[in-house]
């Protein structure tokens, strides 16, 4: 009988795909995930019971499972975690239904951290997942509100019905027909004070959040960096 020479609980390396990435590189990335301050609160081990799968909306529609995420992390299965980072994590809805885990785990939270590392490292999965998403990143980082009325364009949301066209055709008039004084904007959700936006720029720059998108979207990063530094310089704010 052939002898088992590998840990039967780990994904076989040749089945985990991504042979082009060295084991050392995979270990570097996964150790970044595990070194996150939140990680110890997000994983206490895993019963492999599947309760999280039962409540997971993404598991219903994709070949995706929060149990696999927690299980791989609990077994410290580097090859499998790397595979998940490249193939699975962007399917999660971040609803946090899986917080009802009887072990106290937060599989959705583990995914948040894995995504952060994938973005920061400019991994292929992150680039693909964020294709078509740049304008949102630009909006939130530059204006302080994420979704704006002028995003409601029929060609962007053809599946939302004819009302989207009504809104976009009447946008500025309908915005003026809103009683709250802060709501008359079309390019931001509400009227954000200029000084507030500058404070937000300081936050993005000081915490390294802006730097995070450098690898994943160089163009947007350059534009945002220029806008922020220019505005802060004009106001004499040093970073």
């Amino acid at each position, binding site marked *: 009988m052939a002898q088992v020479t590998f840990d039967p609980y780990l994904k076989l390396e040749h089945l985990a795909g991504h042979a082009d990435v060295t084991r050392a590189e995979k270990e570097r990335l996964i150790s970044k995930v595990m070194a996150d301050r939140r990680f110890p609160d997000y994983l206490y081990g895993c019963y492999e019971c599947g309760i999280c799968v039962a409540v997971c*909306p993404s598991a*219903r529609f994709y070949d995706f499972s929060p149990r696999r995420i927690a299980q791989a992390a609990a077994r410290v299965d580097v090859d499998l975690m790397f595979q998940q980072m490249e193939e699975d994590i962007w399917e999660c809805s971040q609803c*946090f239904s899986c917080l009802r885990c009887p072990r106290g785990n937060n599989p959705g939270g583990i995914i948040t951290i894995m995504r952060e590392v994938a973005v920061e490292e400019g991994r292929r999965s992150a680039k693909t997942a964020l294709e078509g998403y740049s304008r949102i990143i630009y909006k939130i980082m530059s204006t302080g509100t*994420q*979704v704006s009325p002028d995003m409601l364009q029929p060609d962007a949301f053809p599946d939302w019905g004819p009302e989207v066209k009504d809104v976009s055709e009447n946008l500025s*008039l309908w915005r003026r027909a809103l009683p709250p004084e802060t709501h008359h904007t079309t390019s931001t*959700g509400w009227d*954000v004070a200029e000084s507030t936006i500058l404070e937000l720029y300081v936050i993005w720059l000081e915490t390294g959040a802006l730097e995070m998108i450098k690898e994943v979207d160089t163009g947007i990063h350059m534009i945002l960096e220029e806008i922020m530094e220019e505005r802060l310089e004009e106001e004499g704010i040093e970073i």
Partner: protein
Amino acid sequence: MSDAVGVILSKKQKFERTPDRRNHDFHEELFALEAAGELIVQRVSDDFVSVPTKYGLQKKIQRGHLWHHKSCGQCGHIPGYSTSIFWIMRKLGYDYDDPRDQTSCTAWNYYASATSNQAAQAAVALRNFAAAYETGYFPLIHCGTSYGHYKEVRSELLHQPELRAQVRKVLAKLNKEMVIPEEIVHYSEWLYAMKDEIASRSILDLSKIGVTVHPACHYYKLVEGDAIYDPDVYHGQRTAAVSGLVLSLGADLRSYSTFFDCCGFGFRHILVQRDFTRSFATLRKIEVMKEEADPDVVLTHDTGCVTALDKSQFATQAHERNVGIPVMSEAQFAALAMGAHPFKVCQLHWHSTNYRPLLEKMGIDWEAAWAEFQEDLKKLERGDQKYLTWADVGV
């Protein structure tokens, strides 16, 4: 009836909490850090309502003098949502601040794209909290995701000195102090706390209006201990936010089996992978509600849920699925009950699924209301006035 059955039935009639399951009260750490001079706790004023939470602790909900932490999705795409919250507050005579010194919590983007990090998210939250504190008004959070995310941030700050140090450095650059409010309060908690006052001002008979409620995941699943649970609503087994108000308004609250399911919003999915959102929102929520409860309206209490549940129905109708229930926030529904204008206040023309049969059943003449709104729009177009004002909507 056997003893065993009696025991089971008595459990069903009145849910008793077991104290040992009670969540740890975060206030202990919060006040300890304040005593150590690490942060300032913005106190709830003396004018508050006490409400029950999941493990039996009471939560203080300040009545007036509130700082409205707005939601970008509500203000941007469902503006009748935020307008209704303000309108109810004005109608009941409570003062508030609608600040310009407020950013989005940025958590929609964070959960969608992860293009941010823990320290940045905490700094955004604390910048907003400090801005509220400086005005003297107490923060009231409109968005379910902001509410859940801020509670996560609070928990991380209370337990991680390194994070506090990092955020304190950023706040120093902004000349701001580290402030955490005594309670993080969602607007639906305020509506719940004020439900009797609101009901006493209702002018409509809603007893024939069938309502199903979708509870927002980020309201009651993230840091779940201080979400509202009331033994008198669903026997304390489901959050009482939204549903408690529906009951007080005398509407016909109906149950369905996928109550705990997510709406399918997905943060990134709603923007770049809507086939998922549409499938989940309609197959797991709207169709199930329709088959099991046949409601006249779906009420919910979060930006993303209104969007996912409302906007997903148009394309699904083309597949001849069993959908077609109007969706709005309970704030809009309560405002309608109190006599708010369906277009000038509740701004229902921004919604997708047909709400007109609902208005008719509620006894609201939507055709006349639409004509009135058109008259107002003409005034704005002619330049008679630049904006519709609160005076134009009677508050």
